[in-house]
């Protein structure tokens, strides 16, 4: 089968291969259903899978998840694993919002008991949790304290009373990338990060109250502390301006490195440097620092959510029962051990709009989840719902321990704005049973439910491929957006 000039071979119900050709060092591998390919081929995402396959040191496949869509350099929903001895690291394989990710907080509350207080609670969360463009947080850090945030991640939050030991344990990599070096972060980036800790941001970032609508795998749901009818809180945010600046700063250095080392790639946004070169090491040190900032940002957001819920509902921590299920990033590059051609190898895994999904028994998982696998959260559009998955064995064989990260956009922001014109998105959402509080109506219009692919179809692909297992389906009841 061919789409434009791209050759595609269907290798199973859920997998497609772009054969290795030209300068590609490995084939492309897309996980998607036949129906989904119709959306995927409409933009440049497949071309970007091919471009990534040209990067030095890439192993096995250049991978696209079912929520793949057009990004810059790498596609969003892209995974690429590099051999550190010969391979490169590319900021385009991580994205500007370094360690953007999601965390899920469970509660001891049933959604029905909460429903009469929802308008009050949503208003309080919108007021108390800083969101929107240019929002600033209450916790300002600079100088040595910023160094600690960038170096220690969630442990800094715990040392300041914003996190419990369980929060740290239930965060990917215990909320800390150890390679972080604050010296590798520019003064501009640090400045941008000084007043943005504990802020949601705008665009597709959100705070959501959901109901656990359906349990698919009771054993895993029990391990994650989830039960039907439960109120849970979903947070999506990243490393804010500090992370954007780290990425931006690195692109110039990478471009210079490529010129001096005569590395030629098909797209300028695939700027890269060898992992072991000083330029590569410096980027990884700054990336780790920004990732730690993102962990702290989401931890502070969670802390504020917990405080606001308890205060609004006049409940103590024990009655509200708000605890972190897990926090996982979806824009990262980090070293992990994976099997390639029958041998365990240490690889640098880029995940851009893709989530780590380690299977049961993996040593990097918290003890509480080791029997069932890593919790993975797949937010859908704000009107339909989201999924809680667990990493499965197939992820290690098929996708370097990775799965999708969301529904994936199918409509441009301009199209979404046109589609939303003349109607009230807030009223539409209320008719669907979802309360909305937002800083910008324009952002809301860009994020209308129909702008996204069907999250159930996306999840169905990774489940059928054996990459993840369904644990629970969540239904939104309230959304706070920037």
């Amino acid at each position, binding site marked *: 089968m061919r789409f434009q000039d791209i050759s595609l071979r269907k290798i199973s119900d859920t997998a497609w291969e772009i054969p290795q050709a030209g300068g590609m060092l490995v084939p492309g591998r897309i996980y998607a259903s036949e129906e989904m390919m119709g959306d995927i081929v409409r933009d440049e995402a497949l071309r970007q899978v091919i471009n990534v396959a040209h990067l030095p040191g890439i192993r096995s496949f250049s991978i696209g998840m079912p929520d793949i869509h057009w990004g810059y350099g790498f596609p969003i929903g892209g995974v690429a694993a590099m051999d550190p001895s010969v391979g490169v690291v590319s900021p385009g394989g991580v994205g500007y919002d370094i360690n953007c990710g999601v965390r899920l907080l469970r509660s001891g509350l049933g959604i029905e008991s909460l429903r009469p207080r929802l308008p009050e609670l949503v208003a309080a969360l919108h007021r108390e949790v800083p969101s929107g463009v*240019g929002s600033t947080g209450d916790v300002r850090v600079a100088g040595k304290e910023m160094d600690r945030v960038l170096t220690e991640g969630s442990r800094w939050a715990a040392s300041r009373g914003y996190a419990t030991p369980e929060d740290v344990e239930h965060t990917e990599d215990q909320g800390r990338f150890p390679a972080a070096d604050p010296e590798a972060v520019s003064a501009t980036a640090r*400045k941008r990060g000084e007043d943005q800790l504990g802020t949601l941001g705008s665009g597709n970032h959100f705070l959501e109250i959901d109901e656990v609508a359906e349990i698919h795998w009771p054993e895993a749901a029990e391990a994650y502390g989830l039960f039907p009818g439960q109120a849970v809180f979903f947070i999506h945010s990243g490393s804010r301006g500090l992370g954007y600046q780290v990425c931006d700063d690195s692109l110039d250095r990478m471009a210079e490195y490529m010129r001096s080392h005569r590395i030629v790639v098909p797209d300028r946004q695939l700027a890269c440097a060898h992992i072991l070169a000083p330029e590569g090491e410096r980027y990884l040190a700054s990336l780790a620092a920004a990732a730690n900032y993102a962990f702290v940002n989401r931890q502070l957001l969670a802390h504020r959510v917990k405080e606001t819920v308890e205060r609004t509902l006049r409940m103590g921590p024990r009655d509200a029962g708000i605890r972190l299920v897990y926090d996982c990033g979806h824009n990262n590059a980090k070293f992990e051990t994976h099997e390639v051609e029958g041998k365990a190898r240490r690889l640098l895994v880029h995940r851009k709009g893709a989530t780590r999904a380690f299977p049961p028994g993996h040593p990097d998982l918290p003890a509480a989840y080791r029997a069932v696998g890593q919790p993975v959260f797949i937010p859908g559009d704000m009107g339909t719902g989201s999924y809680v998955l667990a990493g499965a064995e197939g992820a290690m064989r098929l996708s370097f321990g990775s799965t999708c990260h969301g529904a994936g956009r199918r409509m*441009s922001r301009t199209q979404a704005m046109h589609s939303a014109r003349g109607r009230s998105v807030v009223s539409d959402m209320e008719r669907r049973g979802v309360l909305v509080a937002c800083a910008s109506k324009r952002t809301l219009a860009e994020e209308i439910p129909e702008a996204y692919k069907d999250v159930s179809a996306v999840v169905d692909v990774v489940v059928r491929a054996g990459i993840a297992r369904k644990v629970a389906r969540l239904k939104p009841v309230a959304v706070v957006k920037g």
Partner: protein
Amino acid sequence: MTRRRHRLLPHTADLCVEVRGDDLPSLLAAAAEALFSLLTDRRRVRPKERKILPVPPAPPEEQLYLLLRQALLLVSSERFLVRSAGATMESGSVVVALAGEAADPARHELFREIKAVTRHALSVRRDAGGWTARFIVDV
């Protein structure tokens, strides 16, 4: 200010902008205005302050990229919004003057956060009708 010199082109996740100008300086000025039109309603921005952004000699694509990065930093570091832009060229360097003011939440709605101006698919073209540039911003 009233003449529309930019339009949005389809892009799935981010925003792809096309701008036009009679010459390179006016193209760069139009690009700066387009960037701020993505952020706010420029008609509500008062031209109280001027910021001068120097763009050194370089290929036009690079000049566009350098200018837009500097302009975006004004928003993130100083919350500066732009009403209008003008540009002059001398010995290959372009000097862009931005007129505007610091964002005032009471008067300025900020539409969205722009994470970065990207080099992806960035282009500057010259033809008989003038200059055209395209760039993508990550939102």
